């Protein structure tokens, strides 16, 4: 984005205006997430900065909403549920999705387009429609209001993400490596574990992370098919926002922003590792 030497004065001005514009849009993207972090330390039960906070008076800040969160059995139970459902559905979706992706990336896969469109559809169908449909069906087969029901539903929602990321990884996979391994005397099992798996793992792990975050953040389906026992974090937040809005939600939100930063860093490291293994970038 360097300004070329032949740029006129007007272009130079436009260049800086453009950069300023981009800065504003970035502020719009990230600003709201940053605003809530200090707000969550508010000593008062308000959703805005108090006079004390603005003058950096220690009195204005407190950890009471975090304390509230970590001592509330409702919230802790919700976290537990979210992790149970999230991890179980991630494992299911990753296993099913990865096996399917192996088939999909075969050159001889018949009806590839149709099958791919079908496998991606849970991502495209509006959640409220999936939720309503699953509610009818799961109630009929007595899976509504059970952990198994929610886990199966979330598996279906997470599958497209696994399929997309793993097929993308496999499509850039160089199959001559397999033949090279064979020619060097490795049997298929050894080839799989020593050559294929290390190259594919970053894609599988990032697909799994997508599946996990999909389940971890999902409200609508849980709202419809879960019972009071399966209340998850998002449901707790949802009812918190609708009913008694307290800054505890901001504390939870801050923790979740930190979690997403962690996930994002993991993903970025995985991507770099994948590229390095494939020799796309040096170092």
């Amino acid at each position, binding site marked *: 984005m360097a300004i070329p030497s*032949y740029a006129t004065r007007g272009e130079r001005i436009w260049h800086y205006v453009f950069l300023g514009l981009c800065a504003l849009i970035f502020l719009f993207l990230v600003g709201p997430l940053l605003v809530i972090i200090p707000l969550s330390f508010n000593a008062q039960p308000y959703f805005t900065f108090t006079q004390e906070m603005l003058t950096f008076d220690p009195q204005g800040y407190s950890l009471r909403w975090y304390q509230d969160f970590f001592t509330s059995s409702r919230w802790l139970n919700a976290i537990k549920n979210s992790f149970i459902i999230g991890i179980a559905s991630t494992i299911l979706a990753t296993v099913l999705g990865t096996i399917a992706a192996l*088939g999909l990336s075969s050159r001889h896969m018949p009806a590839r387009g149709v099958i791919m469109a079908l496998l991606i559809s849970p991502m495209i169908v509006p959640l409220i*429609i999936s939720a309503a449909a699953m*509610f009818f069906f799961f109630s009929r087969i007595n899976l509504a209001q059970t952990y198994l029901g929610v886990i199966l539903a979330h598996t279906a929602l997470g599958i497209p993400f696994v399929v997309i990321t793993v097929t993308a990884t496999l499509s850039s996979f160089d199959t001559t490596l397999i033949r090279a391994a064979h020619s060097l005397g490795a049997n298929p099992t050894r080839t799989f574990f020593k050559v294929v798996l290390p190259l594919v793992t970053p894609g599988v792990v990032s697909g799994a992370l997508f599946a996990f975050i999909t389940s971890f953040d999902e409200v609508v389906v849980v709202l419809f098919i879960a019972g009071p026992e399966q209340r998850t974090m998002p449901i707790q*937040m949802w009812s918190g926002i609708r009913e008694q809005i307290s800054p505890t939600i901001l504390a939870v939100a801050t923790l979740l922003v930190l979690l997403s930063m962690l996930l994002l860093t993991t993903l970025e490291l995985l991507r770099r590792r994948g590229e390095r293994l494939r020799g796309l970038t040096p170092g």
Partner: protein
Amino acid sequence: MSDSAAPLTTADGVPLKVSLRRAVRRSKFKALLLVSPLLLFLGIAFVIPIFEMLSRSVANPEVSTSLPRTVAALENWDRQALPDEPVFEALVEDLREGQAARNLGLLASRLNYERSGMRSAINRTARGLGSMEPPYREAMLDAHARWGELDTWKLIERESSPYTMTYYLSALDRHLTPDGEITMAPDNQQIHVSLFWRTFWMSGLITLMTLLLGYPIAFLLANLPLRHSNLLMILVLLPFWTSLLVRTTTWIAILQSQGVLNDMMVFLGVIADEARWQMIHNKIGTVVAMTHILLPFMILPLYSVMKTIPPSYMRAARSLGGRPFLCFRRVYFPLTIPGIAAGGILVFILSIGYYITPALVGGQSGRFITNYIAYHMQTSLNWGLAAAIASILLFVVVVFYLVFNRLVGVDKVKLG
């Protein structure tokens, strides 16, 4: 001569073509085998439920299962005058049976959707059934005035078919008259069509906003050296990875009347304390929050298209004497149209199906049609109507999805 014409064979004498075809068939089979567990799973956990819901939007079992005798007795009815005693007798028998089985509630609700007063007609009649004696025609006419009206009987006859289109009609604010003509619902009951339109135009507006905000960002990211753009990309991906509810909550904290933005404006003296802006629980809240939430879905496809445009094109255009704006409009912009189409359709599809954000920040005026699906599912319990609205919405989404698939290809979707 025969040597050159003989088909090529493998070592064991099988013609090469046959052998190759066999190998392809085997690898096709293997590929299908690998995909089949997932297809089976999605078929059961996702596709069957969707189709079952679609069938629910036309299913009409209530009258035919609760009133089998009445339906049979009405077969020879001339539709000109009230039915005769046998029909009333059949109805009494049906109602008695239904009361014993305690399933008259469904029938009462079903008929009440089509004609108000039917619920009370059935309930009040059912209460007096025990002491009711022949002739039933007079007894029923005494029990409730609705039984004396021709339209009631026409309704029962019409709804005796196992399928109905009335749910779709009411999803489009229309209903059937007793004589089977389609009319508009009264003005004060027309809600769904306007909500569909609102969902569409607001989603269009949100798509436009994400395009306006996303285009410069994608351009910047695509033209910066990789080192910087990777860093800035994190700023795009962070909101993408952050919980939807968190992002919605932050907009509540920022936009509400005692919120951060209003406080700041009052502090700066831009607005008076009494005249705080109403930015949430209305259309503004929905548009702002959803633009923020969906912006990464616009930036990522745009970015991946812009990344493939060689910078030399613009330089060439400039060297041929084009003014910067002209070069952009005639050279760069047309090349980014695939990205605009991909991002635009993606954002639009996601937007018309959004439920959570409009429900939390939309108030009354910023609601989407999805909120009515939830309302009919959870509050009014008119599941047939919910299924009909959902089917219409699903149809629109599928049409856009097919266009998207045609233009971009689902397997080209990149995540992060």
